[in-house]
């Protein structure tokens, strides 16, 4: 990812766009943040929010006509949040103004003509930037029409306080009998602002042409004008203030010799890209003030609580992974970018990048199609290319994939057939988790069409998810060659992930969803459950409408009652295995599975073996569709999830059984340690599972015990043996009783001892 791509990504996430109120405020006051502070009745914090964007808040906040309310998202649900009244309450009841900050002094002087609101604000903005300002006004005191307001609207003391504050910032007030742009005193100043909303503005106005609508520049260089003269204008105050500020921005640019328009932040006039979901918002009427003097404290708090706290976070609200890291995709894009830019030091975001399940729910939810999946997969590929992918991140899944694609792989036409009309591809997870049902399913498929071949293999999804492009390409080339040798029959795919991968990576291979195929054939004697089930679509079926429908049709055809599940179909969620999340961040993956399972009161029904087992691990009753179509003797719902070791074993036994259909006997001899007698208690087995140590790893180590790296404890007769398999050294702790190895523990490490290539 380069800078430009980063900006493209960042631009797609609109979470940081302003809320409607802020976009609708000509000063950009953050009504959302203000409401939050008001809701806590933290008036000091609320005032700070105002002062951050509002010049001379004591005056402006009391008088503002609140055009923001016209944009407030709450307006259709009981009326806009009364930001104007809340501001008045805050300024009246809260603490006074804080100390103003003034930038270091500059030597160019600015003159402001007119003591109305726009002139005062222009003077404020320029003085803050360090310019000495001379403000010329009619009458004894500056303020213009502000001085005509009743005490209840603008106490004279507040106006005076703000004027003293202006003075402290470096504004000098001059009472003059006449406001004339030809004033001799202006000779020494380098820029001049003419307030059209001050007293005597009428006379002044006559001498002026209309200023530019954005910069408020007049034709004569260095002169600017703004402010609403008409006394009956419905937004006289706020527009005057806004124009005074915009003119001050121009004057600053002018004095620095900069362009008045280049990369100028324009007023939004309510325009914002922020998306706010309002489907769950219930109407709530605006709080009316009981007394005449505006809100009471309690009323203000209640009114502020009506603020919807507008924001997007559509993706984060539904994704445990996105929520886990405390921010949202715009921030995440930068984290990922920074991570890849690190030359020396720790890549803090590696786990984050590898933690995404690549399920793309975010893209389905995002109003702007932001895909964390795409971002993370790109980053993984880059890490692999640059040889900085942590070797352990996807190690287990990749070694599983390699085993499934070699040791337990098999491809055959149907028994006694020389061609295939169909090729059944169960996928390595179904084969490993439910070998017996897979075989029953294959027999059923043979009964439907005796020219249905069988293809046991891995589709390569783990290599894809791990960002290993080369390894994926090699897998795909091998799969394609095998398929061609079989005469290119359509492939009946059971697993949605396999089907998605084939579709994306090997589009020349025709795949047919197994479930759509079954849907149109006579069904085996199935068994519906007595309780309704909620279908949890696998995340890889998000865009496979046909399969999703076929599964629902199958359920209906066997009389299975279904119960709805909110996040399903295109919005479905991952079980925590997708994208190898479970490899890179098992704890988070478990949290994802728990969150998914908790969404349904009804037991779940799925058609992905991995989903079934992961959801079942959470304790939620979960069935695989095959459990209904091919009910065995066991109560399928209570089947414990298959252990990692038993999955390997399952693939092995399925391959052997499939071979037997062809009269082939599995090659004898077996693997090292196959004949050893092991005893492994349940708690030990659970620890092995957590550490991803297979029983066959233990057998491998024990088969060489006694020859090297093996030790005996003299006191307890406990034994320890170590052996290296691939990238990992495994240690087994055990006691020998007769010929039985009682395993009491096992652990592993990736470091090598003595030399770089192992002990």
């Amino acid at each position, binding site marked *: 990812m380069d800078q430009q791509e980063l900006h493209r990504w960042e631009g797609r996430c609109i979470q940081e766009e302003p809320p409607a109120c802020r976009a609708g405020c000509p000063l950009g006051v953050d009504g959302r943040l203000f409401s939050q502070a008001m809701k806590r009745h933290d008036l000091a914090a609320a005032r700070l929010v105002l002062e951050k964007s509002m010049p001379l808040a004591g005056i402006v906040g009391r008088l503002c006509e609140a055009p923001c309310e016209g944009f407030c998202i709450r307006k259709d649900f009981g009326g806009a949040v009364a930001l104007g009244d809340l501001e008045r309450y805050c300024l009246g009841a809260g603490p006074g103004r804080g100390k103003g900050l003034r930038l270091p002094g500059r030597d160019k002087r600015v003159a402001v003509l007119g003591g109305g609101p726009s002139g005062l604000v222009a003077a404020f903005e320029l003085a803050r930037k360090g310019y000495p300002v001379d403000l010329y006004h009619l009458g004894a005191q500056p303020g213009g029409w502000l001085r005509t307001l009743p005490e209840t609207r603008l106490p004279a003391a507040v106006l005076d306080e703000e004027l003293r504050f202006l003075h402290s910032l470096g504004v000098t007030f001059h009472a003059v009998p006449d406001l004339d742009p030809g004033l001799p005193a202006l000779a020494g100043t380098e820029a001049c602002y003419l307030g059209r909303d001050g007293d005597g503005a009428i006379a002044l106005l006559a001498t002026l042409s209309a200023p530019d609508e954005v910069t408020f520049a007049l034709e004569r260089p260095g002169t600017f004008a703004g402010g609403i003269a008409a006394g009956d204008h419905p937004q006289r105050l706020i527009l005057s203030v806004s124009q005074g500020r915009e003119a001050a921005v121009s004057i600053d640019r002018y004095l620095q010799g900069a362009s008045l328009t280049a990369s100028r932040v324009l007023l939004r006039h309510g325009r914002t890209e922020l998306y706010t979901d309002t489907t769950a918002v219930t109407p709530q009427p605006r709080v009316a003030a009981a007394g005449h003097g505006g809100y009471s404290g309690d009323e203000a708090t209640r009114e502020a609580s009506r603020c919807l706290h507008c924001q997007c976070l559509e993706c984060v609200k539904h994704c445990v992974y996105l929520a886990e890291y405390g921010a949202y995709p715009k921030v995440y894009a930068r984290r990922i970018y920074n991570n890849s830019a690190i030359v020396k*030091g*720790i*890549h*803090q975001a*590696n786990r984050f990048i590898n933690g995404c399940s690549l399920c793309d729910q975010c893209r389905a939810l995002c109003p702007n199609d932001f895909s964390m999946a795409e971002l993370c997969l790109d980053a993984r590929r880059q890490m692999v290319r640059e040889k900085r992918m*942590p*070797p*352990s*991140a996807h190690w287990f899944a990749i070694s599983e994939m390699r085993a499934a694609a070699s040791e337990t792989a098999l491809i055959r036409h149907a028994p006694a057939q020389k061609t295939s009309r169909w090729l059944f591809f169960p996928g390595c997870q179904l084969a490993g988790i439910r070998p017996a049902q897979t075989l029953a399913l294959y027999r059923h498929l043979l009964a439907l069409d005796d020219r249905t071949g069988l293809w046991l293999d891995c589709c390569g999804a783990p290599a894809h998810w791990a960002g290993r492009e080369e390894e994926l390409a090699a897998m795909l080339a091998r799969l394609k060659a095998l398929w061609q040798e079989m005469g290119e029959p359509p492939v009946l795919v059971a697993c949605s992930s396999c089907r998605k991968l084939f579709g994306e990576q090997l589009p020349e291979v025709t795949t047919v969803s197994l479930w759509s195929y079954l849907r149109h054939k006579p069904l085996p004697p199935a068994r519906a459950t007595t309780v309704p089930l909620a279908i949890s679509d696998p995340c890889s079926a998000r865009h496979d409408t046909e399969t999703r429908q076929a599964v629902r049709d199958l359920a209906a055809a066997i009389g299975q009652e279904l119960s709805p599940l909110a996040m399903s179909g295109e919005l479905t969620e991952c079980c925590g295995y997708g994208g190898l999340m479970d490899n890179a961040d098992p704890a988070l993956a478990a949290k994802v599975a728990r969150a998914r399972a908790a969404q349904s009161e009804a037991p779940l029904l799925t058609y992905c073996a991995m989903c079934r087992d992961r959801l079942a691990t959470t304790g939620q009753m979960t069935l695989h569709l095959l459990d209904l179509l091919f009910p065995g003797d066991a109560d399928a719902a209570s089947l414990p999830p298959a252990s990692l070791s038993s999955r390997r074993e399952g693939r092995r036994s399925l391959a052997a059984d499939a071979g037997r259909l062809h009269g082939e006997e599995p090659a004898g001899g077996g693997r090292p340690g196959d004949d050893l007698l092991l005893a492994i208690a349940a708690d030990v087995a659970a620890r092995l599972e957590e*550490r991803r140590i297979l029983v066959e790893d233990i057998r491998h180590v024990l088969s060489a*015990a*006694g*020859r*090297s*790296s*093996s*030790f*005996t*404890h*003299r*006191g307890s007769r406990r*034994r*320890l043996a*170590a052996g290296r398999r691939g990238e990992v*050294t495994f*240690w087994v*702790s055990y006691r020998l009783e007769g010929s039985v190895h009682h395993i009491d*523990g096992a*652990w*592993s*490490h*990736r*470091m*090598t*001892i*003595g*030399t*770089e290539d192992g*002990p």
Partner: protein
Amino acid sequence: MKLSFIPEDMDWVCEPCGLALQPGMAELFYLGNVFRVELPMCPGCGAVLIGEELATGKMLQVEQLLEDK
């Protein structure tokens, strides 16, 4: 600084050699890095014992740190 991981209980014997383990300096390698560490070692064949605590604790931490570097 000398890195040392000698367990309290050193009552271990190397099975092939029949010799009692003693503290010895071993080298641990990972991703192009080397650490010299004192570990229980067979004085005969040089075999090194890595206990559960070390493997799942310090060693794992260092591995992960190096992987993220």
